[in-house]
């Protein structure tokens, strides 16, 4: 016999005795939808052994993972929610929220939403902020720069880079790097120089990704300096952007740029040789650039 699923969580919970972990599910649901931490309720809820409550348990886990920007855990929880269950009606909403917002991701987002009910679409609209807080911060940072408050711009830009790197639904380290390059360009355009900003980039992005940001900002404009910065990045180990695969490609790029510069080929630096003293390296790159 097919199981019937109730759409009324509180009516379902009411069928359980007060000592049942089912009641902690209500507390857990309240916590995850309000951004409150309630680890006790979350833990107790997991002890609930009821086929009827299973989709609701997983809904709570999916919502928690969604807010924590953990797409893998969210997708795993969704797998355990039967399509025919009441919480299953919200699956298109979750998939829409998890979609990337690149050019193809936008299409996917609308496809997901169009497969959902009107109620799911309405919930999505209420759930999504009209403007991303990081975008608002970026506008404020730029405004500060235009008003000549360079220190304020640099501090805000650093915060934005750090937050971008933490995003997991998209390639956060790539976007942070592109934003860092954008900021260096802005500073160049508005006479800020970038000397003070470079240490912030290194602090927020780490040495490998920070030097890579600088190197790619200079690529095509000052390839000699770009090669120096990219070598420094390679000598700094792995980063989020500069993972093992990207290190190989950046090494190819350095070799390609060196050919164009008619410099002696990279005879070891950046190719796994003993790294130089980091402070010396940083100063050398800064002197060369500015």
């Amino acid at each position: 016999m097919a199981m019937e699923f109730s759409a009324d969580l509180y009516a379902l919970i009411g069928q359980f005795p007060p000592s049942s972990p089912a009641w902690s599910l209500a507390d857990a649901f309240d916590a995850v939808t309000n951004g409150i931490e309630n680890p006790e309720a979350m833990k107790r809820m997991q002890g609930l052994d009821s086929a009827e409550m299973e989709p609701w348990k997983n809904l709570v886990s999916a919502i928690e993972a969604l807010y924590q920007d953990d797409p893998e855990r969210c997708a795993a929880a969704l797998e355990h929610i039967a399509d025919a269950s009441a919480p299953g009606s919200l699956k298109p909403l979750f998939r829409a929220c998890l979609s990337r917002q690149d050019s193809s991701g936008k299409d996917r987002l609308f496809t997901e939403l169009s497969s959902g009910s009107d109620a799911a679409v309405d919930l999505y609209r209420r759930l999504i902020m009209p403007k991303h807080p990081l975008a608002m911060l970026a506008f404020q940072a730029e405004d500060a720069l235009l008003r000549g408050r360079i220190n304020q711009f640099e501090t805000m830009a650093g915060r934005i880079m750090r937050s971008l790197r933490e995003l997991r639904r998209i390639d956060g380290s790539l976007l942070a790097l592109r934003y860092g390059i954008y900021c260096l360009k802005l500073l160049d355009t508005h006479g800020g120089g970038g000397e003070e900003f470079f240490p912030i980039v290194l602090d927020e992005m780490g040495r490998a990704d920070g030097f890579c940001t600088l190197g790619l900002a200079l690529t095509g404009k000052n390839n000699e300096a770009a090669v120096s910065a990219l070598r420094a990045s390679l000598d700094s180990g792995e980063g989020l952007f500069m993972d093992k695969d990207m290190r190989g490609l950046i090494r190819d790029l350095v070799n390609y740029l060196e050919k164009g510069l008619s410099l002696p080929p990279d005879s070891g630096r950046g190719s796994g040789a003993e790294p130089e003293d980091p402070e010396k390296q940083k100063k050398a790159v800064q002197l060369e650039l500015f």
Partner: protein
Amino acid sequence: MKAAADTMDTDEIRTWLINDVLHNDAGKEERVMRLYKALRPLESAEELEGELPPALRYIGPGVWLKAIKDASTV
């Protein structure tokens, strides 16, 4: 910043990425696209906004439960 010491610009470098690196090793597609994107800097804060995933706000349990009920009564 110092003046450019050479003439190889980013367009030429991106062409090298696609025509040489990717053409010779299709297995590098993902990393080549990452570098290709990295070599195309953001043009504005608006562009950054377009690249960000949806930001979510906390709306409490009632709105979620109502959506589930409404979806189930259709």
